[in-house]
């Protein structure tokens, strides 16, 4: 496969994944503003921070309002991580690698772009947001479904999957890191209404507020929430799950390429081992924020090693 094609597949799926995660973040943010007495527009700072665009936002907007924040996150083209920008970038990458995609996968991607572009061509009304967010998740789900149902399990599939999980791991780590302080034992008062509310919003951002109950049956606890998002290998958005997938897809590539292992394989294995052996108590003791910062750095490093190793650019 061309290095540029591998790059296009990798980024196509990173962008589709990011679009969906941003939609989920906005969803959690809206939920907060609906359910919490005394909530304010200031709450959107945290959402923008999780999306990694807080500074960029303040360059365009003087004050923080819910409407501006939502617009910036969903449809502003100057925000390269807005849902619309991601869908467009994902679709441009799909166009570039079209010969590597099944017709179903391409058409699902193209239709998502056509549909969302039409829906987001005008300023959004608050009343339309729940439906729009539903449509974004739905369209991303259709792309994923077409992809899973029709693509050969070969190197094309592997590069797409690696892109998906590198992005997802990054997103989950950032969501946790923005709220890490509410999970610290020193400040959290177990069972307080404020904590319950904060924790639920974290779980909602990764669509895990229901599954939490199945895994940990019982009350929200800071350590359990951190455990679920970092180490719980059954949870499809946890760091541990993402690294299971990254490692296995990298391994398929190595097998496909006659056993050729790259630096990226060692890096991914090391991160996976760390997540597999880790205990949440140790992570909390050593500092959740430091742990997450380090993870995001290593995750990025792995991304760069994959780009180099498989000749994405040169």
């Amino acid at each position, binding site marked *: 496969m061309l290095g540029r094609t591998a790059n296009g597949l990798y980024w196509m799926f990173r962008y589709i994944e990011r679009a969906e995660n941003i939609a989920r973040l906005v969803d959690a943010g809206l939920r907060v503003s609906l359910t919490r007495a005394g909530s304010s527009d200031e709450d959107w700072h945290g959402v923008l921070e999780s999306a990694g665009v807080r500074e960029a936002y303040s360059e365009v907007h003087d004050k923080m309002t819910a409407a501006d924040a939502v617009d910036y996150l969903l449809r502003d083209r100057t925000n390269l991580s807005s849902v619309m920008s991601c869908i467009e970038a994902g679709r441009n990458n799909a166009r570039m690698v079209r*010969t590597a995609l099944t017709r179903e996968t391409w*058409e699902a991607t193209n239709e998502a772009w056509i549909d969302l572009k039409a829906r987001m061509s005008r300023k959004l009304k608050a009343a339309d947001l729940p439906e729009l967010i539903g449509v974004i998740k739905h369209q991303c789900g259709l792309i994923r479904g077409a992809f899973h149902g029709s693509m050969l399990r070969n190197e094309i599939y592997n590069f797409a999957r690696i892109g998906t999980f590198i992005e997802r791991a990054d997103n989950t780590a950032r969501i946790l890191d923005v709220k890490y302080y509410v999970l610290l034992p020193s400040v959290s008062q177990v069972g307080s209404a404020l904590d319950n509310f904060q924790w639920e919003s974290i779980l909602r951002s990764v669509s895990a507020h229901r599954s939490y109950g199945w895994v940990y049956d019982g009350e929200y606890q800071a350590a359990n929430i951190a455990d679920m998002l970092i180490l719980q290998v059954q949870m499809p958005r946890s760091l541990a799950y993402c690294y299971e997938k990254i490692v296995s897809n990298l391994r398929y590539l190595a097998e496909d390429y006659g056993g050729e292992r790259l630096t990226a394989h060692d890096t991914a294995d090391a991160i996976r081992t760390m997540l597999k052996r880790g205990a949440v108590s140790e992570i909390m003791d050593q500092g959740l924020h430091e742990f997450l910062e380090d993870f995001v750095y290593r995750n990025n490093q792995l991304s760069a090693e994959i780009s180099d190793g498989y*000749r994405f650019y040169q």
Partner: protein
Amino acid sequence: MLTAENLPRPPYKNYQEWYAAQDTAHLIRKTQDAENIFRRTGITFAVYGHADSSEKLIPFDIIPRIISAREWRKLAQGIEQRVLALNAFLDDIYHKQEIIKAGRIPRELIEKNVAFLPEMIGFKPPGGVYTHIVGTDIVRTGEDQFYVLEDNARTPSGVSYMLENRETMMQMFPELFTLNKVQRVEDYPRLLRQSLAAVAPPGAKGKPRVAVLTPGIYNSAYYEHSFLADQMGVELVEGSDLRVLDGRVQMRTTRGYEAIDVLYRRVDDDFLDPLTFRPDSALGIPGIMDVYRAGNITIANAPGTGICDDKAIYSYMPEIVEFYTGRKALLENVPTWRCSEPASLKYVLENIADLVIKEVHGSGGYGMLVGPTATKKERSDFAEKLSARPSNYIAQPTLALSTVPIFVNKGVAPRHVDLRPYVLVSDKVKIIPGGLTRVALKQGSLVVNSSQGGGTKDTWVLED
């Protein structure tokens, strides 16, 4: 579709019967369906200079254009003769230049032509083929009366529309294909791959490795490039994927560099090799021309074939065909005034209201004047440009073009069309029975280019 007596022309007989039984509202819906198919599939093109509408659909008309087997045979013979003459002409001007020595064509028209590449002098491309893929634009003026409007020997585009139009028609109206025996066009990608593989450099080992070179996703014909690569099952590459290593053109893959034997390039000559042509080109491959001249890659179409698209050269086609085939041209040229000749220029300026005036290097319907429909001001402005640089222009009469029916909301209406059949040249010549019919959608208009609001329709060549 109709004869002078208002009866359906014979090839349209079955279609006409079917059409008469259709409900107009149903056909309007089908037109919508077709548009949706094109939009969903992403069959779009880009119009340069329109930032806001960067991807557009080409309007598709649901009524096929139907050509009888007899008419097609006549046309195909003429096209084959012309394509062989074009290749012989290219070989001659880059070698012995006998046509110039024989005084049949002026030397300066060849050697001063911007599309003439001195780099090709004395070089014979693999298999001796210059124009591997040719699109010949044809217009019909009456029964068995065809004229060649222009030759596209450089990089004819639009073949993906020929294929998608057929696909769409078969999806929407399967019953029509049992009522009519329509010759297949679907083999084109397979034939193209065979044809390209057949002209691989002699040194290529095993199955020749073919790739399509595109300028990238922002090019107006990108859809077609990816479509053809996909259908042929070959890589779609950009200049940045390629480099010259060990005397071969190689593409960067996830496993390292792999050599290419045949490059079907959809990038213009100027951009092909920054070391030989435009140094600012980011689309090309530095050093590819050296590999080419060393006989280690086939470039299709060969660099320097663009001279055949020149409209001044076109005016010499009857001489060119006769010179190389020893026979009169089977297909007629549209009478053409070369404005470089003072007497012609005078005539053109005096009759500007009746003529179509084109730039010799123009394409895509840009930079031309259609005298009969132009305003007075447009004509006088154009006359000024023409007088300033006469050798840049040619002029042709507007032909009494035949029309074909298109579907409009009220039923059918006549419109002018042209036809671009596609020809593949390797050790043999293959003409795909069909082609791209372009329609001037505006009533009375003669301009069919998609960049100027033209549409397309499926083209049927019937079996006997």
